[in-house]
């Protein structure tokens, strides 16, 4: 103590403070470098995903590839816009992303291709238990949350309204990030939401919401998330990318036969409770499906036409031109 005081007197308290500030900077920087994971090395492919069961093949493929030492770097995002910006900034090679986002990016001149579907079905329209809404028509005037306007969920909602003889403009539509939706429903801020699993199942399990309609019934073969690869990665790292896409495709097939095990593997990767994933995967086999994942040009052409009608893109796209299946 005496010594510290003497040193302190020697150099003056102001300089001591400056010295302490610099020492702190060095300490915290070294600690951070030591503790944090090694920075993303560009050698591996960079893959973006969201914590939803729609992206289950990403979790399973990661687990399988890690065992063979051929893993990729997986980046978990909380919201779609963050992933879009990371993609545009060149930080991602491959993204599990909503089909309309992928198509809108192509429309805006960001080059990339859809190589695989992430899943089929796996989306539900949920209404609040207390709302008394019993049919699609009952949604008129209600507040309904969608994940983002560039989503198949929004397009599906639009289609449902149209089929029941009213316009989506008669709803009060709000954009909300999926994890917030069950909370907003429980608190009564919104009356209903349409979202990818497990956020529909969550409200169901907690007893705050009721599934009004499963997309598998309203829109057979419903697609939502796709695997999108940047043109850059497709051109420069063709082999690696092809191997990865094949791994995602195989993972889908494997999940179909091992749903219980898939839930166990995916829970820590997605950061979701295992019982919730298990419920989504096992309550009925086609609640979400991971087979038949090769995208068909016609489906995407049709989707793009729906997007034009909704005012999301200017002109329809030719399905064949946005799909790349050369990895097969």
């Amino acid at each position, binding site marked *: 103590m005496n010594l510290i005081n003497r040193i302190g007197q020697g150099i003056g308290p*102001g300089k001591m403070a400056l010295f302490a500030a610099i020492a702190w900077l060095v300490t915290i920087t070294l600690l951070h470098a030591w503790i944090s994971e090694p920075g993303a090395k560009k050698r591996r492919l960079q893959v973006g995903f969201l914590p939803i069961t729609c992206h289950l093949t990403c979790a399973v493929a990661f687990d399988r590839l890690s065992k063979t030492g051929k893993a990729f770097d997986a980046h978990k995002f909380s919201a779609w816009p963050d992933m879009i*910006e*990371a993609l545009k900034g060149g930080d991602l090679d491959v993204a599990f992303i909503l089909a309309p986002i992928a198509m809108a990016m192509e429309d805006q001149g960001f080059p990339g291709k859809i190589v695989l579907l992430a899943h089929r079905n796996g989306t539900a329209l949920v209404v609040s238990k207390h709302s008394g809404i019993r049919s699609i028509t009952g949604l008129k005037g209600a507040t309904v949350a969608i994940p983002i306007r560039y989503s198949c969920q929004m397009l599906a909602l639009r289609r449902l309204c149209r089929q029941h003889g009213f316009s989506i403009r008669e709803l009060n539509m709000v954009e909300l990030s999926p994890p917030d939706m069950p909370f907003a429903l429980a608190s009564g801020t919104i009356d209903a939401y349409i979202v990818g699993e497990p956020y529909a199942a969550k409200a169901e399990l907690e007893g705050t919401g009721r599934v009004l309609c499963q997309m598998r019934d309203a829109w057979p073969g419903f697609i939502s998330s796709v695997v999108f690869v940047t043109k850059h990665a497709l051109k420069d790292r063709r082999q690696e990318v092809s191997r990865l896409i094949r791994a995602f495709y195989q993972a889908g097939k494997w999940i179909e036969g091992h749903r219980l095990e898939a839930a166990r593997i995916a829970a820590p990767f997605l950061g979701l409770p295992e019982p919730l994933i298990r419920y989504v995967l096992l309550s009925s086999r086609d609640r979400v499906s991971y087979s038949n994942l090769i995208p068909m040009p016609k489906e995407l052409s049709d989707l793009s036409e729906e997007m034009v009608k909704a005012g999301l893109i200017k002109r329809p796209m030719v399905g064949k031109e946005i799909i790349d299946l050369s990895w097969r």
Partner: protein
Amino acid sequence: MALKGLHPFISFGLAILVWEAAIRCLAIPAYKFPGPLAVAEAMKELALSGRLLASVVASLFRVTWGFYLAACAAIPLGLVLGIYGSARAFLNPIVQFLRPISPLAWIPVALMWLGIGDRSAIFLIFLSSFFPLLVFTMSAVLGIKVTYIRVGLNFGVTGLKRYTKILLPAIMPDIITGLRITLGTAWLVIVAAEMIAVKSGLGYLIIDGRNSMRMDYVVAAMIVIGIIGLVLDWTVSRLEMLPSVRWIHKRR
């Protein structure tokens, strides 16, 4: 006098009791808001797994760099703007224009140009502190008492010494106050800055807790953020005890 120094502990203790009582009396389910015990359990879990330490270090690292860079850029620039009227006339409007834009508005730009990871987060923290510090420094210079300068002139202080012997000592207390306030703001922004695609930090812990529906993690991270905020403020407040700063309080 027996209570001396114990006040904060008593008020925190009471707050925790009220919290527990509210959870019990109103029968609030854990998924809406966890009780103190659940949060303590979550904190223990996070601490034992090493995740808590890693998060704290990552957040402090980003705040330190963002804040230091802001201080290194804002204080000299603030001095220039304070001293030279013409520089002020040109640049002050731009500063005042950029200042009210929330750092959060820069998120899309940061993500696209700086990418995912530490750089974006540090940039946002930098923005949160840079403009307030700049304005603090500038107005500190403008607020120097004319008497100090006149006295200095009478004593024959000219040239560079005017700055080192009069200007800097005169504004030092204001700058320390500015640092203390902006460090608070920088720490405030950490959650938002770490929302965007970093894989670590207390902000990420909150976002990840939300995504995985672990309210206990969310509240545990909130508490740690609060505690560190207190420690940071206390540390900087020590600077106010320096002789080069204390004089202004003595005078008042």
